[in-house]
């Protein structure tokens, strides 16, 4: 009897051992995703949205993909080039990750390219609209870019305005002297000229300038029909307020990206009225769920409701963009059956899903990017409290209203 008990204990012990070992083995099956993001510093707004998008995506997969636990290795790049390089080097050389998401800001992503080249992991880039980045990653099959290129901010509004108001109108451009404004300027000039507009003034302002009125007063003298502002949201707030106060009498105001953000609207109040911009995502649009993966890619209203419930705020562009990008990566890992980056890359290229950002399908671009998704943008105008989609016609729910 005693021997039996002893044997029973031995067996139980062995089983427990097996269970624990199995547990450890199971815990060791981890997919590690490196996420170098702007968690502090001047682009913290991008990084915090990116972090929320990632959290939502991990939750959508209940933290597991293809039987592997998803482990996100967040690294703060402090919104600096040096921080981006250090974080990438740490993730690639020390952590040996095969998958990366981020950073978001163009300059920081470009700074991270040489570090990425050391091992060339699969890199999802949900931002970086600068064409210099498109040139830098031309022909690179392991880079997956999931945001429209910078020219999208100009082709859409230029064509839409030409269709609505005819050709030959006068355009003035005000741009900030940082990388953002300078990188957008040639594209804005090119696409407005090609759409039949005449560029009558180009005025430069310093980033974080306290007074943009001199530039605005010089623009007033040229009597433009359209004013295009190429700057980040921080300067977009100041310029919108100062344009409103200066009573320039320009009927059409176009912003590079900032007019889509609710934070900008809250900051400028009634000065937001009439501004036009191109957007890749806007909360409140009627976008259906993906028929095959409705839990991962739900209808926009359901995803936005879940987001609002979790974070007590409406999602913004980067929340949605990083969620969609990460969810597509996780789905590709799932379909590849694990973390082999070549197989995951192949699955990503084969994906075709309906997402809150539009059709999630990677295609090459004429500029040389091998894997590009979500390059389509639509044009909106803020009309009082409403946002009206004015272009393309197939998607529009209203018409341009010039500012009185």
């Amino acid at each position, binding site marked *: 009897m005693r021997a039996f008990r002893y044997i029973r204990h031995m067996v139980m012990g062995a089983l427990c051992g097996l269970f624990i070992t199995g547990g450890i083995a199971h815990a060791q099956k981890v997919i590690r995703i490196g996420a170098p993001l702007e968690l502090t*510093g001047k682009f913290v707004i991008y990084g915090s949205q990116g972090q929320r998008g990632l959290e939502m995506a991990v939750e959508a997969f209940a933290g597991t993909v293809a039987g592997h636990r998803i482990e996100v290795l967040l690294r703060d790049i402090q919104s600096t080039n040096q921080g981006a390089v250090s974080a990438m080097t740490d993730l690639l050389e020390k952590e040996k990750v095969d998958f990366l998401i981020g950073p978001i800001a163009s300059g920081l992503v470009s700074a991270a390219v040489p570090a990425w080249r050391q091992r060339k992991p699969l890199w999802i880039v949900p931002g970086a609209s600068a064409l210099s980045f498109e040139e830098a990653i031309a022909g690179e099959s392991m880079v997956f870019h999931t945001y429209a290129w910078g020219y999208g901010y100009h082709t859409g509004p230029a064509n839409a305005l030409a269709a609505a108001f005819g050709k030959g109108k006068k355009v003035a451009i005000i741009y900030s002297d940082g990388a953002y404004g300078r990188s957008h300027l040639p594209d804005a000039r090119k696409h407005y000229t090609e759409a039949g507009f005449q560029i009558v003034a180009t005025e430069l302002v310093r980033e974080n300038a*306290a007074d943009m009125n001199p530039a605005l*007063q*010089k623009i007033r003298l040229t009597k433009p029909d359209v004013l295009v502002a190429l700057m980040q949201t*921080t300067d977009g707030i100041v310029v919108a307020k100062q344009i409103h*106060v*200066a009573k320039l009498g320009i009927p059409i105001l176009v912003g590079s990206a900032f007019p889509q953000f609710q934070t900008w609207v809250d900051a400028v109040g*009634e000065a937001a009225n009439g501004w036009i911009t191109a957007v890749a995502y806007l909360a409140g649009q009627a976008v259906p769920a993906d028929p095959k993966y409705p839990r991962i890619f739900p209808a926009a209203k359901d995803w936005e409701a879940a987001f609002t419930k979790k974070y007590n705020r409406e999602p913004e562009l980067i929340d949605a963009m990083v969620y969609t990008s990460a969810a597509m990566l996780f789905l590709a890992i799932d379909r590849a059956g694990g973390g082999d980056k070549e197989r995951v890359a192949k699955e990503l290229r084969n994906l075709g899903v309906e997402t809150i950002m539009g059709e999630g399908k990677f295609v090459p671009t004429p500029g040389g990017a091998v894997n590009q998704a979500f390059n389509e943008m639509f044009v909106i105008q803020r009309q009082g409290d409403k946002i009206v989609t004015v272009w393309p016609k197939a998607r529009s729910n209203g018409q341009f209203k010039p500012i009185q």
Partner: protein
Amino acid sequence: MTLLPQFLLDALLLGGLYCLMAVGLALCFGVTRIINFAHGEMIMFGAYGAFLLSVHFGIDPLLSLPLVALGVALIGFLVFKLCVQRVLDAPHVNQILLLFGVGLILQNIAVLIFTGDERSVTTAYSLASDQFFGMMVAYGRLIAFAVSIGLTVGLIVWLRISEMGRAIQAVAQQRDAAKLMGINVTAMYMVSFMVSAALGSATGAAMSFLLTITPFMGFHILIKGFAIVVLGGLGSVGGTLIAAFVLAFVETGVSYYVPEGGGWAEGVALAVLLMVLILRPRGFLGQAVDN
């Protein structure tokens, strides 16, 4: 010529804003001989204070200014007691590094509390303007100018006529002599640091309806303020006043009269600073600071 009246007005109003940015910094250096590299964060907290009181309690930034100044003066008190007091006699580089670090910590505290979202207060007057004699007068900027001049004049008067103000001036002129006269030097340092922080927060409150509020707004303002203080003469409130207007007129002039001058304005202003420092190293009204 068409732009001349507008140029003069814009330069004047910008000068007022610059004056407010720098006067607190000038006071702090004049008395303690410490360059407060966390001054930008005092401005930032002032701006957030005005924003929060406006959004949550509907209090106008101008009315909330005393409350905000009091709150940030308390932050100044804590920074002084916990950090500055320990390095009063340390080398300048230690003081600068410490306060730079304090500034970074305050920035990140602001990120945690307020997030990185850009904000700005919107009041009726901040978006209002009228045309007078061919000039477009922005009421928001005019009000900020009035606040700036009021606070700067108030500071000068307080330093001249109040007992504490005179004690602070005595400490600024000769610390050891002031101590021999029975003045509590450390207490005067603390009061100047707190008043400097309060002035910084007033700057933030006055700018909360003009500019964009972010946790990182302070650094650019600090750099500008520092340039003005150096140009005016380290420690001289009067010199700071003159330098603020000189810099504002140079920058605005370049912006108006040079093609794409907005990009050159700051560079030209800093070149002026360099020239003044070569010809007159003490700045406009500065005192010797070799000790």
